[in-house]
């Protein structure tokens, strides 16, 4: 009986593999075995991308004139549903392998030393847009709060329930910014007020808005879209 079940399961596995070559669309892609195989290749691609990544190679910077003023809004819900964070009550929480976990106010964040970048935002959907962001290199912030930068990952959580994370090499990249301004204006509500992480070496969905928590960890943080099948590393 048990043996028979096992055999049937094997047969079914064989059939779905056979179906792979037929490429009939829906059925193959939704099969669990295929999903597992694709996820395994995606994890392999994470490692390939981490190896390709250089901590010193900079994303191309552009002339300020090319920066788009009316930047595209993108999320799984409309802009009027975007979180509305209050400067008086907002606190950035710190967690994990960080020495000083005192929460940060908007005023304290905005008092950090700032720089600007004009870089290209590339969305996993295929569109791209050049923007000008101003803020603090995350590396400076991590050092200031005594983060263990020998840890493997930095994760973040957002006011809209979004969550993501990145490898430490990317977190320490000189162009990975806590961005407070877009086009020289304080970040508008729909673009992540009071701040977003701007990571020009990652696809757009790795650049979170309305960040409320930053944590340092040795366990690979989950990501909202990676949990829904997108590649975790998603480096550019």
């Amino acid at each position, binding site marked *: 009986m048990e043996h028979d079940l096992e055999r049937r399961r094997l047969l079914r596995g064989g059939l779905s593999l056979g179906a792979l*070559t037929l*490429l009939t*669309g*829906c059925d*193959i*892609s*939704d099969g669990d075995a295929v999903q597992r*195989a*694709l*996820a395994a*290749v*995606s994890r392999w*691609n994470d490692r390939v991308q981490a190896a*390709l*990544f*250089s901590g010193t*190679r900079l*994303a*191309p910077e552009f002339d300020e004139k090319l920066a788009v003023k009316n930047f595209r809004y993108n999320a*799984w819900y409309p802009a009027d549903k975007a979180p509305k964070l209050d400067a008086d009550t907002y606190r950035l929480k710190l967690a994990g392998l960080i020495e000083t976990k005192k929460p940060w106010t908007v005023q304290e964040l905005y008092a950090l030393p700032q720089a600007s970048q004009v870089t*290209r935002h*590339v*969305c*996993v*959907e*295929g*569109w*791209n847009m050049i923007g000008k962001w101003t803020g603090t290199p995350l590396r400076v912030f991590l050092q200031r709060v005594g983060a263990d930068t020998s840890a493997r990952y930095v994760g973040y959580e957002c006011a809209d329930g979004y969550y993501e994370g990145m490898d430490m090499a990317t977190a320490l990249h000189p162009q990975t910014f806590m961005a407070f301004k877009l086009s020289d204006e304080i970040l508008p509500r729909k673009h992540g007020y009071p701040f977003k992480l701007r990571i*020009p*070496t990652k696809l757009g969905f790795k650049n979170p808005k309305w960040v409320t928590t930053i944590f340092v960890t040795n366990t690979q943080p989950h990501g909202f*879209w990676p949990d*829904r*099948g*997108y*590649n975790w590393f998603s*480096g*550019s």
Partner: protein
Amino acid sequence: MSEGYEEQRHHLLLRIAHWAQALAILIMVGSGWRIYNQEPIFPFRFPVELTLGGGIKQTLSRNNDPGVANAIAWHFAGMWLLLGAFLLFLAYGFVSGHFRRSYVPVGPKSFLRDFIAAATFRLPHTLGVYNHVQRALYIGVLIAVLMMLVSGLAVWKPVQLAWLTALMGGFQGARIVHFLFMAAIVGFLAVHVALVALVPKTLQSMVLGRARALPHGHAAPAGE
């Protein structure tokens, strides 16, 4: 031996490389069309039934995603199959002398000659010998696959390989190059499959490794 017969033989390695590329190209085009549909370059989308990436309604309700995640997963798995099969095909072609024997010489003059003959249905097919239109197409599609790999890298890594992306006119330029060579490969596929349908023996040799046929207008040699 097979005197009087035309014969075509394909080494096992070449057949593996050929069919692996065929499968990889179907995966890459199917998933690529789904990815394209999310942000079209030109004012059209591909029919969703022809794309690869799972049921759209399912993933929309489950993940808020129209199967693009799945299509990308296919695409970035298929690329390894394509790369491997392409390199195997090239290695075999160069090392065995297959390219030297069968793909060259070919030039614009001889191409035009054979093209006109083919267009007026006067080009006889000799099993095992590639006419000059065939030669140009086979060389062309290999170049197109190479360009797909290169432009794909430029789209995938516009920061780490910024010089390559710049060479293609930036990120959107690289997307367009990637699209155009896709179109070239799909065009090749249509012609290739149609011609195989006209000369089915070529399919037999690409599957079984060997096919024989009588030359055009010749009766079977005595004794066979």
